């Protein structure tokens, strides 16, 4: 988004007059690992959703959870707090 702005487009003092536009900024582009969710093991406790520092875990319609890779930085906190081993596994970005 900001790539298109010239210096003439900026508000005085670079004030951002559009509230909440940080949602448009992808923060997931320096991630090296990503969480992979396994619905077969997940017990829908929601701890991953609660602990994610970037609110990058989304609740699906069926009550399970998945990651929003637009924001996920790959910190691994979700895997760390998950009480069911294997429900969330961090994998290298290079792996498919």
């Amino acid at each position, binding site marked *: 988004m*900001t*790539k298109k*702005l*010239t*210096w*003439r*487009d*900026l*508000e*005085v*003092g*670079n*004030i*951002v*007059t559009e*509230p*909440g536009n940080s949602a448009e900024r992808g923060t997931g582009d320096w991630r090296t690992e990503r969480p992979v969710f396994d619905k077969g093991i997940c017990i829908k406790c929601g701890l991953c959703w609660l602990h994610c520092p970037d609110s990058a875990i989304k609740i699906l319609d069926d009550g399970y959870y998945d990651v929003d890779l637009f924001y996920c930085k790959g910190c691994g906190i979700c895997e760390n707090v998950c009480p069911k081993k294997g429900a969330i596994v961090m994998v290298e970005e290079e792996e498919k």
Partner: protein
Amino acid sequence: MSCRVALEASHAVAEAVRMADVDVIAAYPITPQTHIPERLAEMVADGELSAAYIPVESEHSALSACLGAVAVGARTFTTTAGQGLELMHEVVYVASSMRYPMVMVIANRALSAPLSVWGDHSDVMSVRDTGWIQVFAQNNQEAFDLVLWGFRVAEDSRVLTPVMVNLDGFTLSHVTEAVILPEQEVVNSFLPPFHYPFVLNPDKPATHGAFAAPDIYTETKISQEVALRKSKDILLQGWQEFGDMFGRHYRPVEIYRVEGAKTLLLTMGSFTETAKMVIDARRDRGELVGLVSLRLWRPFPFTEFRQAVKEADTLIVLDRSISFGGQGGPVCSEVRSALFSEPKRPVVVSFVGGLGGRDMAEEDFGYVLDRGREVAAKGSPELFETVGVRGEVSGIRDL
């Protein structure tokens, strides 16, 4: 009726701040600026000035509090000196980059170490590149006038940039002179109420001070640079209107007895008044010498400066600080650079003097004029010379 009263520059500044009817003062006392916040605190406590006086725990906090005050639309004042400005340094950049208009008075002081509470220009030169509008007062009346003018131009919607008014520590801050205080009504007509266009408002949320990734930071800096350069017209217009209203006229580059002058001396701040006496005496002896004084330091008045010195053969620059390992005086470095591309330019000779409160008496200015012409005539082997330093100095040459 306006009235003529005896005031030190510190108290003249406090009177200007009171007449400007500021809303918020956040300042931390430090020699030689102390009398300014002291008097303002008194005014607030005695009900002479209806403002919030925030007694902060440091200069860093003082200017930080000022940022918040401007963000809610308050007319805001702070003041510091020397080490205080250094402690404030980080926030100095923030204030100008966020385009928060306010006035800050610096009672110019040397920098430690060794500890010195006395005057020179090391403090202001350390914030030269921070993007503030920077002016110098030569006497107490100017200190008063420039504070009023500072609010007027800083708050102009086409400027929205903070103004730093420099006055020499002790030489002005603690010296009593006659100052003309105008009628409050006249001040009110010169200085309309402050309407900051981006006042924080929960009904219309905005982000002040957002971060900038590499893909936008360059644009933010160019926008700031363009705004500072374009502010010059408004600064001049502000001085024009000030002159029309108060009868005292200010220019970005002040000139004194320059008619036909072959040699010009360049000073800033209070040294200018002593230099005038020396120029008068030399003119009476038939010497073709004149004086140029930079009132506006940032944005640098290139056009007016080049115009002022173009007929001279020699330009002698007197700095009150050293840019270590560089060309000596930062002001001289600046003016040399400003003249470099000119087809006809004077020989520029650099002196440093008045460091850490060392007096520059009339005879010292006389020495600078004589020695400067001598050096210009035979070509300068040294980058700069220090007035009155004990012990021979050699080896200050191009590295």
